[in-house]
């Protein structure tokens, strides 16, 4: 029972027994993870490189530009995005709770925690959409910006848009996992795998927030 709780699925308990006899001497072989989890890790690595390419492109054009704007006011932009950051980080905590409940096979509880996570994601999207609306009101477009180089609009909307798409996909994905897990059609590992994706999306925001927002605050 103890091993079961520690390692999650019954299959993992077997893997752990194998791992103890291996060269990893009880540490649990890093290969002893499930196929889905390994697949998700590989996807995350791949997706991380997508964002890296875009963040590097953003940094490149920003450094090369003479008139990169500093458009964000402390109020409302930075306050709002700080709240968004807080909401997203909190949703990671609720996701951890969901994974934990899933491992204990408390399926209804897990589904509730996932619902809380989805709520966090949706709040993030709504706040971000409001933020977009304000900038669009000020005249920022994909191809123009009222201050300095038009690339600001391009970089801003491409980066945050790609991230928002990931959050939106994540909400749908979590909804599917929660429903199917509550009905007993998925294992606790599936919940954990969806959690990996969610934490990754959070982590990406932790790069976008300082690079796009905190470095572009208008000091008055």
């Amino acid at each position, binding site marked *: 029972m103890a091993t079961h709780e520690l390692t999650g699925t019954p299959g993992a308990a077997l893997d752990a027994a194998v791992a103890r006899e291996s060269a990893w001497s009880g540490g649990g072989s890093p290969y002893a993870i499930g196929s889905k989890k*390994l*697949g998700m890790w590989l996807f995350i690595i*791949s997706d991380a490189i997508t964002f890296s390419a875009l963040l590097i*492109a953003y940094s*490149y054009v920003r450094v090369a530009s003479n008139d990169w704007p500093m458009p964000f006011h402390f109020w409302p932009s930075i306050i709002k995005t700080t709240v968004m950051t807080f909401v997203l980080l909190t949703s990671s905590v609720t996701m951890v709770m969901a994974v934990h409940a899933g491992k204990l096979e408390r399926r209804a509880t897990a589904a509730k925690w996932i619902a809380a996570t989805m709520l966090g994601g949706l709040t993030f999207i709504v706040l971000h959409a409001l933020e977009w609306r304000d900038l669009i009101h000020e005249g920022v477009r994909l*191809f123009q910006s009222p201050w300095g*180089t*038009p*690339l600001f609009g391009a970089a801003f909307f491409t980066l945050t848009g790609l991230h928002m798409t990931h959050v939106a996909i994540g909400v749908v994905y979590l909804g599917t996992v929660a429903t199917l897990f509550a009905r007993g059609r998925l294992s606790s590992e599936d919940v954990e795998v969806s959690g990996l994706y969610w934490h990754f999306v959070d982590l990406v925001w932790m790069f976008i927030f300082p690079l796009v927002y905190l470095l572009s605050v208008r000091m008055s």
Partner: protein
Amino acid sequence: MSTTAVAPTTGVNYLNAQYGIRSWLLTTDHKRIALLYLGSVTFFFLIGGAAAVLMRLHLIEPQGALLEPATYNKMFSMHGIIMVFFFLIPSIPAVMGNFLVPMMVGARDLAFPRLNLLSWYVYIVGGLFTLYAVVAGGVDTGWTFYTPLSTTYANGNVMAAALGVFITGFSSILTGLNFVVTIHKMRAPGLTWFRLPLFLWAIYATSIIMILGTPVLAITLLLVALERTFHVGIFDPALGGDPILFQHLFWFYSHPAVYIMILPSMGVVSELVTCFSRKRIFGYSFVAFSSVAIAVISFLVWGHHMFVSGQSVYAGLVFSALSFAVAIPSAIKVFNWTATLYKGSVSYQAPMLYALGFIGLFTMGGLTGLFLASLATDIHLHDTYFVIAHFHYIMVGGALMGYLGGLHFWWPKMTGRLYPDGWARFSALVIFIGFNLTFFPQYILGYLGMPRRYAVYPEEFQVLNVMSSAGASILAVGYLIPLVYFIWSIRYGPPAGPNPWGAKGLEWETPSPPPTENFEEVPVVEEEAYAYGEKEAHVV
């Protein structure tokens, strides 16, 4: 009639287990998906090949014999886009990798069979976008989509072509992901990493490149598409962007992509050389790790495509040195293959002829790569036919020879039928001769200064150009012969039996064609890879 009667257990295999178009289009059997890919990449190969034929016919005369200059531009663009993204990149991984990875690890299927089917559909959707671009009037950017040509000046079908490549990229990522997970998780008992066939090491290294490189191409082409549609100016100097940034991002993927094409071929050649020498491969771990080394270094050399783009001289120096470094693992492979031949009992069946052709042509292509990797000579050779000749020696002389060698080697396993060996050897010879006649003159043309991508050329280059076009027609015949006898063999070829070559490896321990789930029971591996002992040597 719709449901097949209970067939006798002996004759059931993956080909006749189910009938009907649905059983193919909805299959999750890795072997059937491999055949879906085989059909599709062959289709794209014929289209890309037709474009090449038109180009070579056009270049028979200095002023151009056949096409309008604008049409010529579209021809070489479509040739490049289709051959690179829709034939070479999926060729060995998606056809042979799909068929062989589960069988070589002793599994019943890939780790994610449905994802595998999805990859094929994604590939087809991307292909349809690109075919639409062809039908709607073509694209004239070259396969590289360089900005600002692609974003500002080229005609409107760039969108469709770029989106096609963008979409196909996901197929590549998902296939790579599937292979890595399968090789990690589904190896049969006893099949340790250092007992894996070298083909799997090569596929593993290739998959890593697919997973790490392709997203960068995807996001870059997405930015190109955004720039065309919404004037997002990341690559547009008029808006403060930088076209050189495009080149950096593009080559960060597209140089490693060269290794996506060549590494699987190297894996195939490792299998062929050792089987037809009846000898364990020389330096197994060196060959295995050189695949990984090539994959790693491939991400650090993209700047050698940009020596004349105005990048810093110091960056150029570093990229040059790193590019030379790729020669080391490549040479390790070549030396180990030749050392395997030494004192082996070598037999020259068709697959082996392709493998030997690969070794020679790849060596030529690799060594001329060093000319291009050195800063000074590259200034002279950049964007000339020397570059064309160099990468065709790698991609056609290397990757395509390996693909054909592998197809000849595993065709009896895939179909259960033998093809006529005499014709196969003849076609290997025709391809080798035609290939060299096509591309060797292009080294000289490039050295003399003929630039690539031009529809016309000075008259003094005509002799060499006619030689090249003549070679291309021989090459085309060489490719058509296997097409004929492969199709012939499906119906009329003699049954192959489970192991016509007397080869080692789990895939040869199943019937040909294999049953739907490959193995009746999970195999247990108790020997090293390529255990071609003395006994086997006497048998042959």
